[in-house]
């Protein structure tokens, strides 16, 4: 497939925040997109335009603004459905974020009102996750296990930061009800192969969910190709606004699942003692949804498509290779995760011998304007696995440059001087 030419300087001009100065005249070097990405004018303008010209509640207002707003909201669903290759636009459910999307699915399991056998969970049943998950793909499953008496199990991670599939057949077995794993680790950058796990999941008749929060923003992701049952991701990491996430699920499963939140707009009819529910996707969208945020996410998807997801992936691959080489030359620096660009995204976490990441982050920010994330990045078990309390994480996106990685490296040398 041919990759269109990638003009990062032109792309940077789309993101107004990238040209602002920090206090003291420092330029901003934003290497924290894995945490949350910046927004292009195209998204900001679409949201402003909706608020200024079309805003009204959706789905229930009969007036002109009501229908314009509903149209824009539902058009965003169409765009997102196309972006991820959803077989049906009705399989795209807007949530608050990826965490809500995962909780929504977890809530359907072991739920007395859900009589579908695939969702029945009790003592003796098993839930499988991995050691590299974000807390948002751990805690909802812990809660499910606590609620139902089921057992939570997990794939371990190798020293190289890859998923260990050695015990796949034992780990995923006839007792397994759901397997939920990250598509791409938010710490290691590792991109997990879904198909070997999915093959086993299908063999034992379990369901499979993928947390694609770190992959959908950075590479082409097609849910029909993935062929899993549920996919969650969030808007704010993909040039869209915060406050909106997406759950994609197979229609037939979504129809079998009980509502997650009850309220306005998710119903068909309500009596004092019971209700019937709206068809998907609205069954899962109780209350006034994040309307402007949906419009913004639709614009983000248009923007990313206009650049090209293959081109974005290629650009980030080059940045990652450059960063791995440059960081690898710093004495005392240990990369936590794969040291090659193979099956890996643009998230590079590391430790500096003898220096706590908080001190690293503070100096990088304050002296060099380099914004990185420090801490356990909501993946504490993974850090425990590597025997470290925290890491420093640089994460790249379409607007980053090799010059910014040079700034990071200069900053790290200075950090070593201060604390050495």
């Amino acid at each position: 497939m041919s990759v269109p030419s990638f003009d990062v300087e032109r792309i940077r001009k789309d993101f107004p925040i990238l040209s602002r100065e920090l206090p003291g005249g420092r330029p901003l070097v934003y290497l924290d997109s894995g945490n949350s990405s910046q927004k292009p004018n195209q998204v900001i303008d679409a949201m402003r335009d909706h608020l200024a010209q079309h805003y009204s509640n959706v789905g229930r207002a009969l007036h002109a603004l009501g229908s314009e707003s509903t149209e824009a909201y539902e058009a965003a669903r169409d765009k997102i459905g196309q972006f991820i290759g959803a077989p049906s636009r009705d399989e795209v459910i807007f949530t608050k974020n990826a965490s809500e999307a995962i909780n929504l699915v977890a809530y359907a399991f072991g739920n007395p009102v859900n009589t579908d056998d695939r969702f029945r969970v009790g003592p003796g049943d098993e839930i499988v996750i991995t050691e590299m998950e974000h807390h948002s793909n751990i805690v909802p499953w812990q809660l499910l296990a606590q609620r139902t008496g089921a057992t939570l199990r997990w794939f371990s991670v190798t020293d190289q930061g890859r998923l260990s599939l050695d015990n796949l057949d034992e780990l995923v077995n006839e007792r397994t009800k759901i397997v939920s794993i990250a598509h791409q680790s938010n710490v290691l950058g590792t991109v997990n192969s879904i198909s070997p796990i999915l093959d086993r999941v299908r063999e034992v008749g379990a369901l499979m969910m993928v947390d694609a929060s770190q992959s959908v923003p950075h590479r082409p992701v097609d849910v029909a190709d993935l062929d899993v049952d549920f996919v969650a991701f969030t808007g704010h990491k993909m040039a869209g606004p915060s406050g909106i996430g997406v759950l994609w699920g197979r229609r037939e499963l979504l129809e079998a699942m009980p509502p997650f939140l009850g309220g306005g707009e998710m119903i068909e009819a309500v009596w004092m003692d019971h209700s019937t529910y709206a068809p998907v996707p609205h069954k899962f969208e109780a209350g006034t949804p994040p309307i402007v945020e949906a419009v913004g996410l639709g614009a983000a998807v248009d923007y990313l498509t206009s650049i090209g997801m293959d081109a974005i992936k290629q650009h980030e691959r080059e940045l990652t290779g450059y960063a791995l080489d440059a960081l690898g030359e710093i004495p005392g620096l240990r990369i936590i995760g794969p040291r090659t660009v193979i099956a890996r995204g643009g998230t590079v976490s590391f430790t500096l011998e003898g220096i706590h990441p908080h001190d690293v982050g503070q100096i990088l920010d304050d002296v060099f304007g380099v914004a990185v994330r420090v801490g356990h990045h909501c993946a504490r078990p993974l850090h425990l696995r590597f025997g470290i309390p925290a890491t420093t994480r640089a994460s790249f996106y379409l607007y980053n440059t090799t010059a910014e990685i040079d700034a990071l490296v200069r900053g790290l040398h200075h950090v070593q001087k201060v604390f050495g």
Partner: protein
Amino acid sequence: MIAESMYQELILEHYKHPQGRGLRDPYDAEVHHVNPTCGDEVTLRVKLGDGGKVLDVSYDGQGCSISQAAASVLYELATGSTVEESLSVVDEFTRLMQGRGQVEADEDVLGDAVAFAGVAKFPARVKCALLSWMAYKDAVLRSQV
């Protein structure tokens, strides 16, 4: 370059050469405190003697330079003083740290701990500085019951 002023020489010295570090016996109370936002943690023991004398403060833990240096300074200030004196230092230190950089520190009370004044301007780091001091207060209260 505000942060560089936060990293006073005294803080860096304590970080590189922590005083009184390591858990020791005997002790009256042991506590374990964590900072959930960053994962910093400290285990701290106190041994009190007659007349409310603080015979020993021993500690171990992991964390950033601010949290580790604060524990080291605490050790120096508390050991050999009395519970009453040391708790008044803890109170003054807490007031300084929570003052958002607007509080004038009482150097007579704080001694070396005044070097942490710059930390108060960084809300995200205040908890780092207070971690072992709060643990100390907790341990003293527990050893008195």
